[in-house]
């Protein structure tokens, strides 16, 4: 796997040798994009923050992955954390930052002690005068969103904020702040050191009704048939859910998987997580479990998302109780569309994707419950 290649501080050494500007040039040329979903060029983000006049800048590593079905950052934390720290140090060097944070999701707290030791080791070896602090998340998914993570580190409720200002301009304590996730930062030294580094490899988290769930690395555009051959469905597969945000779709073996297929290009979050759903399940059950995720995780700041996600759960429960007619299904669709249109952040804006897509492709599963 490309993501497991170690760089042993060679990337940092190279960065300091060639200088800040050159690092940005190389990362741009190598086409390193953010792996949080938007694929925004890392160099551009860093350049913006570097361009803001400030006496302090901060770097945050987002280790708060939490979209259901996603566990690839945990895989990196466990298997190549040193390289990720190196990426963080390179970011700190380029941005002249003295203080870095790793926002570790509370559900991964059991990894913390080991991570802290490794941070100490790498810092010592690097001889960089920066601090790296682990911020202990506490089970709020929304803190993966960049404005919310900043609020959370500053000791506030982790609610999303209106943008602008963008964190790169005014983030932690009003200073320019760069946020990259675990996968992105791990790629930084790898892209600098290895000539043959390929920007199109992505980590996939595969789970559900398959015999070989786990983290895999494939090139963008990989065929669905290739994926299925490797992960081996344990029964006939009826559908797949792209994490939570990407919707529930039928599986087409000939299709290829890219950012566009997962999120139709308009989703902020899309990690490459595929949950395969076997034939014996009713899609409405899966929808209900996803809908509950949104009610747990809505930060409550805007009404459509806070109240609407609860209404979606209630409607789905009502459908399952068979006390509905077709009008309720129409209502479900309208509700989902309406919440998405009127919510502030990516969470609310995608909270109906699973419902809208499943209504489109698996209406039969809903109709089973209609009087």
């Amino acid at each position, binding site marked *: 796997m490309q993501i497991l290649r170690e760089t042993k501080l060679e990337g940092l050494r190279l960065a300091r040798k060639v200088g800040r500007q050159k690092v940005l040039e190389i990362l741009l040329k190598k086409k390193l994009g953010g792996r949080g979903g938007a694929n925004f060029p890392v160099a551009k983000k860093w350049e913006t923050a570097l361009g803001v006049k400030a006496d302090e800048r901060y770097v945050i590593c987002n280790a708060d992955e939490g979209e259901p079905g996603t566990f690839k950052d945990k895989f990196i934390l466990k298997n190549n954390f040193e390289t990720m720290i190196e990426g963080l140090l390179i970011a700190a060097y380029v941005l002249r930052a003295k203080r870095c944070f790793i926002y570790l999701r509370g559900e991964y707290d059991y990894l913390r002690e080991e991570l802290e030791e490794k941070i100490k080791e790498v810092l010592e070896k690097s001889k960089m005068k920066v601090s790296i602090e682990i911020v202990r*998340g506490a089970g709020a998914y929304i803190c993966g969103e960049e404005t919310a993570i900043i609020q959370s580190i500053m000791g506030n409720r*982790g609610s999303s904020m209106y943008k602008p200002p963008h964190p790169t301009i005014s983030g932690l304590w009003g200073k320019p702040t760069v946020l990259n996730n675990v996968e992105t930062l791990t790629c930084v030294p790898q892209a600098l050191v290895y000539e043959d580094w390929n920007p199109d490899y992505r980590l996939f988290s595969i789970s559900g009704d398959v015999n070989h769930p786990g983290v895999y690395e494939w090139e963008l555009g990989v065929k669905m048939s290739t994926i299925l051959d490797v992960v081996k469905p344990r029964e006939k597969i009826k559908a797949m859910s792209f994490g939570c945000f990407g919707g529930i779709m039928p599986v087409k073996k000939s299709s290829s998987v890219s950012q566009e297929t997962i999120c139709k290009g308009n989703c902020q979050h899309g990690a490459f997580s595929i949950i395969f759903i076997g034939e014996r399940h009713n899609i409405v059950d899966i929808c209900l479990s996803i809908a509950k995720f949104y009610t747990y995780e809505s930060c409550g700041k805007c009404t459509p998302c806070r109240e609407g996600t609860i209404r979606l759960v209630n409607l789905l429960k009502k459908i399952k109780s068979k006390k509905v007619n077709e009008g309720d299904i129409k209502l479900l669709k309208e509700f989902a569309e309406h919440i998405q249109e009127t919510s502030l952040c990516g969470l609310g804006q995608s909270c109906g994707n699973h419902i809208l897509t499943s209504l489109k492709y698996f209406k039969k599963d809903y109709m089973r419950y209609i009087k």
Partner: protein
Amino acid sequence: MKDKLLLNILHEVQDKEGYLSEKSLKKISVEYNIPMSKLYSVATFYTMLRTKKQGKYVIELCGSPSCVLNKSREIEKFLERELKIEIGETSKDDLFSVYKTSCIGCCDEAPAMLVNGEPYTKLTVKRVKEILEELRKNANS
């Protein structure tokens, strides 16, 4: 509060005392000059911070899709039956508090749960029964 991070402070207290009592929050409030209202507003925002007394073992069972596909509902029903509580409650002997949580990143070993932050995966009713017994034993020793 730039030097000490509030989230880490709250976690440290909870690690030691099991939850964030009013008394402890008052101490933090005085020491760091943060109003109580603000502390409660933050502490109650995060599901893993708790302002009420908890059982000795806090169980968080994943209710997200990969676990549901792997029969987490059976585990849920078993826990409720075995501990004679509903999700969100604490057992009479004060040993177990049980919650449902969103994905804990163990989807490839589903169904999964955290007990006091430690992951337990590939759960079956039989395995959960053993885990509970083990925990009960540890609690008494």
